């Protein structure tokens, strides 16, 4: 019998990728295509949903062609997607109502401030696990319904529908106007501010708070189950899974047990910890979210901590200061010295995120003396990513009552040995990099393969996970304690820098999302 594969689609912020994996979880074929970013006004970020769909129409057959594989050799298709981005479209024609509004878009800042002042606002966090912020989908949907003439009426009649990117793609793949299935998965729904985290259903009070008609919303389904078969592009492939990209990475890193966590190090970083069958309420500024839901099994919850500035601090060191010519050189420069020389950089470029949430904070370089060289600064840049990870992990341990025992890492910065070693040192747990770096795509493939029995169970997936590298902690405990104390003192120096009424890009509860 011909070899069989699972296909995954990663509909990301800058590109869409289509990858085939074999039964051992090895990458067999990869194609990708970027799409245009639209910035019509300051703070606005949009994508053309039609362009994204057209890209997928080309990528899917191309991926099969490149690998010389027939459609019937693909046992299932899984989708991972940029989260919180929304698009409205006409159910009868398949034509989107304007562009999709992207997760980075902050046009709803005033709307969110206004909503935050209402009495029900306090209930939002408790029901959804999320703070009321521009980052999530519901304010964007409300903004569109409030401003586009006639759209609210069409939505109420069921003529205009809404979805995050996986909804849009599944609807189109299963026929579009001609019988397309309008669904979303629990992880994506958990980022809208409209889903009750406990019942995993759209919440009527939240819907009326945001004034969004229920008829326009997709049906909430598990992360792994057969939503339907493709009828277009390459017909007949079972669509077996959908997850938000960071949730897919958690799945791809096989963080299936409570306490297991992964961190994806990119321009910003996303740390998610599996907290098991009950949502862990955060009192330390973390997000409570659905990790994944397999078929009929109960949902598995996760805590999420986002670090706004990690890789982008290295980019600033390269482009803003010009002290290095490429990002990896930061390690070369940092290794010219033995330690940070007493210098700490806190990159609160647009305030501090988890666990502080101080929008008025601004960055500092603390401990400057004439002894400090660019090598020390390079160390301080890398160490900033380490200490920020430590603060999020501390918050997670406190909120979940679990103790992180190993951190699984992925993303571009895992190529930096000095940083990975430092993270192991400051967390005092081993840091492990898996062999497949494409954890987002792999997670979507795993979930889809699981839905159709290509992989028998989670243990089968665990066996596919292989360690490519491991960094073990070796820092003297006293030094760890004193360095952490120094870092925290440096963090305190950033507080209160922006004065009220001074013009700056962050107002009230509205914060800029981390880049990824």
């Amino acid at each position, binding site marked *: 019998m011909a070899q069989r594969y699972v296909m995954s689609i990663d509909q990301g912020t800058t590109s869409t990728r289509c990858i085939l994996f074999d039964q051992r979880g090895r990458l067999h074929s990869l194609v990708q295509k970027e799409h245009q970013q639209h910035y019509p006004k300051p703070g606005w970020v949009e994508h053309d949903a039609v362009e994204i769909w057209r890209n997928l129409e080309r990528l899917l057959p191309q991926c099969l062609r490149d690998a010389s594989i027939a459609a019937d050799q693909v046992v299932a298709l899984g989708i991972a997607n940029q989260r919180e981005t929304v698009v409205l479209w006409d159910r009868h024609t398949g034509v989107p109502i304007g562009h999709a509004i992207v997760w980075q878009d902050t046009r709803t800042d005033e709307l969110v401030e206004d909503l935050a002042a209402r009495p029900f606002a306090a209930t939002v966090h408790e029901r959804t696990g999320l703070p009321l912020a521009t980052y999530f989908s519901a304010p964007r949907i409300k903004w569109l319904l409030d401003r586009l003439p006639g759209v609210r009426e069409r939505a109420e009649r069921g003529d205009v529908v809404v979805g995050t990117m996986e909804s849009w793609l599944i609807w189109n793949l299963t026929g579009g106007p001609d019988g397309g299935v309008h669904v979303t998965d629990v992880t994506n729904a958990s980022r809208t501010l409209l889903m009750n985290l406990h019942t995993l259903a759209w919440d009527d009070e939240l819907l009326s708070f945001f004034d969004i008609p229920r008829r326009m919303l997709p049906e909430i389904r598990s992360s792994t189950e057969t939503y339907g078969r493709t009828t277009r592009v390459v017909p007949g492939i079972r669509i077996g899974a959908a997850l938000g990209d960071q949730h897919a990475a958690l799945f791809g890193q096989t963080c299936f047990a409570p306490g297991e966590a992964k961190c994806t190090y990119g321009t910003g970083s996303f740390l998610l910890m599996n907290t098991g069958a009950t949502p862990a309420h955060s009192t330390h500024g973390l997000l409570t979210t659905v990790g994944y839901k397999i078929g009929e099994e109960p949902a598995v919850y996760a805590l999420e901590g986002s670090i706004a500035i990690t890789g982008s601090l290295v980019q600033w060191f390269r482009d803003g200061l010009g002290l290095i010519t490429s990002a*990896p050189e930061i390690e*070369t420069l940092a290794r010219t010295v033995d330690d940070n020389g007493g210098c700490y950089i806190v990159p609160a470029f647009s305030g501090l995120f988890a666990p502080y949430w101080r929008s008025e904070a601004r960055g500092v370089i603390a401990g400057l003396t004439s002894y400090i060289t660019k090598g020390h600064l390079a160390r301080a840049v890398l160490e900033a990513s380490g200490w920020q990870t430590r603060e999020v992990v501390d918050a997670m341990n406190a909120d979940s009552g679990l103790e992180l025992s190993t951190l699984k890492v992925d993303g571009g910065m895992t190529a930096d040995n000095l940083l990975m070693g430092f993270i192991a040192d400051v967390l005092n747990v081993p840091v492990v990099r898996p062999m497949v770096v494409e954890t987002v795509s792999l997670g979507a493939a795993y979930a889809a393969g699981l839905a159709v029995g290509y992989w028998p169970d989670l243990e089968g997936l665990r066996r596919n996970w*292989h*360690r490519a590298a*491991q960094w073990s902690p070796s820092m003297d405990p006293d030094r760890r304690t004193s360095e952490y104390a120094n870092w925290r003192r440096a963090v305190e120096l950033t507080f209160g820098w922006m004065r009220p009424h001074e013009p700056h890009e962050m107002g009230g509860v509205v914060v800029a999302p981390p880049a990824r």
Partner: protein
Amino acid sequence: MSNERYGRRVPGPVQSIERAAAILRLLARGSGRLGVGEIASSLELAKGTAHGILRTLQRVGFVEQDRATGKYQLGAALLHLGTSYLDVNELRSRAINWADALAARSGEAVRIGAPLEGSVLVVHHVFRPDDSLQTLDVGSLLPLHASALGKVLLAYDVELVGVLQRGELTAFTRRTIVAPKVLARALTEVRDHGWAADVEEYAPGQASIAAPIRGYGGLVVGAIGVSGGVERLCDGRGEPASALVGYVRDAARAVSRDLGASRW
């Protein structure tokens, strides 16, 4: 001196190289930041011609373009002309995906090496994918003459061979090559075949296979290879298994292509 001294015409000066040199001299003067129009008019070149040369110089790192103004200046690669090797952390970062793929396909541990003071510096290490206990040995040193990585580096670097031959070649096992003449022959073979192996030359029972990583213009900037037990890496006759050699060479070519070596 006549161009026809050896009875065969030596080609005359290459115009585009002369022009490129003129552009570099121009950029080395004064403020050192010029737009393509300014460069073209100074040298009386068509703007398209100047642009083409600048693009090529930018590709090899000899000029850089300022993102904000679009003006050109001398690139960092010119300052480091004496050290032809790539920054080792840059090399790791560019090779990491291909090194993972090589480990997954071969089932063996992967290392990437670059020369450092008469040894091979291990700049990247991917564990053998069997989840057994292994320790990251990035930063450790291997002998040039007794490892596949080292032999690849020696084969394409005359200078490095010179450094090595000033000292004594240490014997690690009975099979270590210690005679300079034998080593020279082995390096010729490496160049002929495009890959190198060590079979129990560094440690009994251990073998390694490696191939060159090339940058712009084909310059060898490092080596990538697999290592492990002789029984897994070699066939029945004690020769490196051809399938593994193929995987190693594929990975080396893939990294080289990523680094801009177009022909390999």
